[in-house]
């Protein structure tokens, strides 16, 4: 891998270089809220809006085929990284300008971390609440990645209205499993079906879980959901579509969605996409975030992006007072 001197991507303001390209948007008029602007103010004009949409569509039309082609070429070259540790030797090299991209930087840091023994890694997720638009792209990509059935969700986005009219704002808070350092969900399990991995991720063994749901009551973040065996097409003329039967690859195993067999009847939760990490890839919620609001990496690496971000004073953790010491940090 070509290592290049990259400029510090995180400025003192806590903003990433991705944001540096476009100029800082002007401060919204005081009378503007997330729900719109008061009469008399000048929000984006219809013409300007249409022009921006057209340019975005045009850009995608140009970029998409080349992205698809690049992907296909990678597959043809055998450079896909589904096969586990192959990426360690033959990972693609990044050009200098690409390295400025936050995703590519995190990807490179992830691979660096994966070369270390597992107990020397400390995975951490950082979510910048100032950037989260509440679009739920991460929620959906997580569902798609893990083939989650109906009623199971690993990363919902909590929406909160703050203030009273006319001084209101909306805060969106994605809530994955916090992978707590002192996880209250772990000691309560009567059969050792859930435990803390050396790298800090809270692991689950679906085949061991008896489905007592004690861990769900113990989690202070409502981060565990029960797989009731629902399908999205239940009650429709054509239930149980083939796509609902596609196995998921959580925890590095194949899990077919089938009533009476795990993971149906089990408790499920976010696992930072361990199966993707093992393949040298970032969790799905990180790569799908349209606002570049989610960061992921090894906090034990002092040069990593997440290590930098969590050393700032504007970080918080949810329900800090409970002493669960989450590995998910929020920037406010």
């Amino acid at each position, binding site marked *: 891998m070509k290592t290049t001197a990259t400029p510090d991507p995180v400025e003192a303001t806590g903003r990433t270089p991705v944001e540096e390209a476009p100029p800082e948007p002007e401060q919204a008029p005081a009378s503007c809220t997330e729900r719109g602007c008061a009469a008399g103010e000048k929000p984006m004009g219809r013409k300007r809006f249409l022009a921006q949409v057209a340019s975005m569509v045009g850009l995608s039309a140009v970029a998409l085929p080349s992205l698809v082609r690049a992907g296909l070429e990678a597959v043809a070259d055998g450079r896909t990284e589904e096969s586990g540790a192959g990426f360690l030797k033959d990972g693609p090299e990044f050009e200098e300008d690409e390295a400025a991209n936050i995703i590519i930087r995190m990807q490179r840091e992830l691979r660096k971390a994966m070369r270390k023994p597992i107990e020397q890694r400390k995975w951490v997720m950082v979510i910048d609440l100032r950037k989260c638009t509440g679009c739920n792209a991460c*929620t959906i990509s997580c569902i798609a990645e893990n083939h989650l059935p*109906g*009623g*199971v*969700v690993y990363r*919902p*986005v*909590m*929406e*909160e209205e703050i203030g009273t009219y006319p001084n209101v704002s909306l805060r969106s*808070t994605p*809530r994955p499993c916090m992978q707590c350092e002192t996880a*209250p969900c772990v*000691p*309560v*399990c*009567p*059969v*050792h079906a859930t435990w803390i991995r050396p790298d800090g991720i809270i692991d689950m063994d679906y085949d*061991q*879980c*008896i*489905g*007592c*749901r*004690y861990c*769900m*009551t*113990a*989690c*202070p*973040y*409502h981060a*565990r*959901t*029960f*797989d*009731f*065996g*629902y399908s999205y097409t239940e009650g429709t003329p054509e239930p149980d579509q083939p796509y609902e039967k596609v196995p998921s690859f959580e925890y590095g195993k194949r899990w077919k969605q089938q*009533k*009476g067999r*795990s993971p*149906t*009847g*089990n*408790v499920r939760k976010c696992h930072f996409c361990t199966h993707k990490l093992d393949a040298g890839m970032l969790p799905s919620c990180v790569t799908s975030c349209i606002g570049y609001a989610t960061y992921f990496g090894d906090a034990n690496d002092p040069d990593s992006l997440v290590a930098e971000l969590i050393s700032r004073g504007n970080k918080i953790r*949810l*329900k800090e007072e*409970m002493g669960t010491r989450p590995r998910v940090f929020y920037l406010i």
Partner: protein
Amino acid sequence: MASTATATAVPAPRLNRTLDYRVSLTLAVIALIFGAYGVFRVLVFKEHGALTSYVPWGLWVGVYVFLVWLEVGMILTYFLLRRFLRIEGLRLLAPVAMLAAISALLGALFVIGMDLGHPFRFWKAYLQPNFGSLMSWMIWLHTLYLGILTAELFAYFRGKVYVDRWKIYLNFLTYISIPIGVLLIAVIGGLFGVVAARPFWNASVLPLMFFIASLVAGLGLLTLLHLLFSPTRGTPQYETTAIQMARVFLGAIVIGMIASLANGLVIAYPNVPAYAEGLKLVLFGPYWWTIWIVHLGIGVLVPLVLLSIWRTRLWAIGTASVCYLVGFTMVPVNIIIPGLAYPMPTMEGIKDAFYHSKLTFDYTPMFMEWQVVVFAVGISLLVFTVGYRYIVEPYLREHH
């Protein structure tokens, strides 16, 4: 439970004929048939009723706790009444109480087994237990308790309680069943109480509250068992024993009320939402009537009035114990569900974060959940009926 007094201390008992074996058996079979479809839906269709990911425990766990209160409370109160108050008229009730405890225990184990996502993996709790979890302790203590009660009942069945060698052995079992019973109740209370994430449970002194609740509920059932099944029926001792028990029962209800009131006030007074929300749900939520009408009205007020005014009338004592038991059924449900049925502090946004019928804080038991409960009651009734016929009656006939 071993009897230590001599058989001559009690007038020759008239064998209890009031239990109509056939009626009881028919009721049990009807309950089993009525509940069978609910059980079928759980085992074959893998349904879990109205439970959701945010209210993961509901009616079944509540009924389980209620049956355990009865089972352990009855054995404990029997021991306390015999040992400390020396109520001699209860001596012959020992096998009946034990059989009732085993019946309740089997119903409890069945209903909690149905609650598991993978009921047929229950063996993992025995072979691969995590003794750091109170749930493991609960499962093991339950098994131990069931073993002790079964061994004692078996001794009655074989009529061996009066053989000296067995007497020592049974006395030993009786004595160890007491601390195990106390531990079991404390562990079940602790199972909820240690969950720091649920302020309503965590703020209540649940191990102690469960212990008190278990004693009062057990006493209610023991009084009823005495009135219905005591072999001393028709003798003056029968009535004296009932009146003695009624007095203790009245005192126990008052103590239980004071303890609950103190606990409620401690939670409510600071009015911290995290803690008070659960209590508000109990008192003024959609199921307010279960606490005000069923528990406090039928379960507390009626027995208090009956036992205060007609304390020597058997009909009043019987009605009071039935009312108390009926009213008490709602108590565990009113502890467990309100502890879960609201988002945790600072996580309120989770309520509307993602829509699905299984991602909600609203929980109302479905018909099939009630069916499973009726099936469990059917199991208890069946075990009791058959056990009474083939274990208790022969024992009483042989010895008296």
